């Protein structure tokens, strides 16, 4: 069964509710995560989903015929190898700016720097990983 990560914070919230009977803290944290990442998740669903997929796994609808497959954002190991500043740069200025694929376009004309920073933080939430570099 494929997990739908489209609103991972919401799933986390469900998990948090299940635990709430024995521990209130996870639910509260999940609700906070929902609110914290809501705007970034909306941007992801608008711009990133077309290639990176509704499950955030690199299997977007456009990925079928792409010569270079989009990054799997749920891959903790792969995402963990990318420094925070590179994530920001690749979103803002595109794949070529970090010697990666031209198929990753620059979104700096669509999203503000603040939105891109929020999106980068959201990606860390999705992969459940920090940067190892």
């Amino acid at each position: 069964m494929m997990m739908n990560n489209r609103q991972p914070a919401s799933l986390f919230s469900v998990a948090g509710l299940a635990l709430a009977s024995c521990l209130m803290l996870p639910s509260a944290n999940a609700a906070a995560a929902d609110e914290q990442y809501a705007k970034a998740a909306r941007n992801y669903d608008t711009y990133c989903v077309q290639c990176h997929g509704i499950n955030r796994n690199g299997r977007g609808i456009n990925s079928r015929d792409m010569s270079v497959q989009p990054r799997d954002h749920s891959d903790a190991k792969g995402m963990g190898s990318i420094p925070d500043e590179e994530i920001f740069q690749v979103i803002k200025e595109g794949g070529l700016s970090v010697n990666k694929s031209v198929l990753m376009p620059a979104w700096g004309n669509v999203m503000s720097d603040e939105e891109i920073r929020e999106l980068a933080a959201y990606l860390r939430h999705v992969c459940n990983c920090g940067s190892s570099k």
Partner: protein
Amino acid sequence: MNRYLLAALGLGFAAGPALAADGNGAGLLQSQCISCHAITKPESTSLDRLWERKGPDLYYAGSKFNKPWLEKWLQNPVRIRPAGEFYTRHLKAGDKEDVVDESSLTPHPKLSQADAEAAAAALMALVGPADLVSKGAFKGEKVSMAMGGMFFGKLRGCGACHMAKPGFGGSSGAELYTAGERLQGDYIYSYIKNPQRFDPRIWMPTLNLAEPDLQRLTGYILQLSATEAK
């Protein structure tokens, strides 16, 4: 009824038969189209509006479309964007990758010939702000299809989101093998140059192309249509 059903095909009319038998296309737009389309420039350009709108903006339709295509399409509408509009509303997870949730898409109503001609005439009168589409920007020079194809595919990655031929390419953007029939060259040029001038939150990125590349890409897309038609 899916409130986004009309967006699936790019234009939305909820028209009955011969609504504009008197030739009052402007009245038809006003009474039948504005529930899904903006025929005047919208005040809001927010992301929320992008998510809430039911169909593409038409306030600059006269600077975008070719009238003969409009007349034909309105009588026999077919899907232009493989995943509909707004694409992200029409996706579901597939076995390998996301696929179009066809159940969320509904065919666009057909207009009678009289209504289609009246509506097309009214739409062509909606030219939008004078500085939106750069008149005469596309120089109309023939381009090499081999060079254009390489630029479209490998060098700029347009094929990631758009289909240059039926059945191959991306689905979140409009098919482009019919663009030459549908669209004006100056519109294609202006839109590629800066999609956010048309809609600040649209999901097509700005590629920051140099002038020769804008000319080449516009020419390729227009010729692509002619090539596919053979």
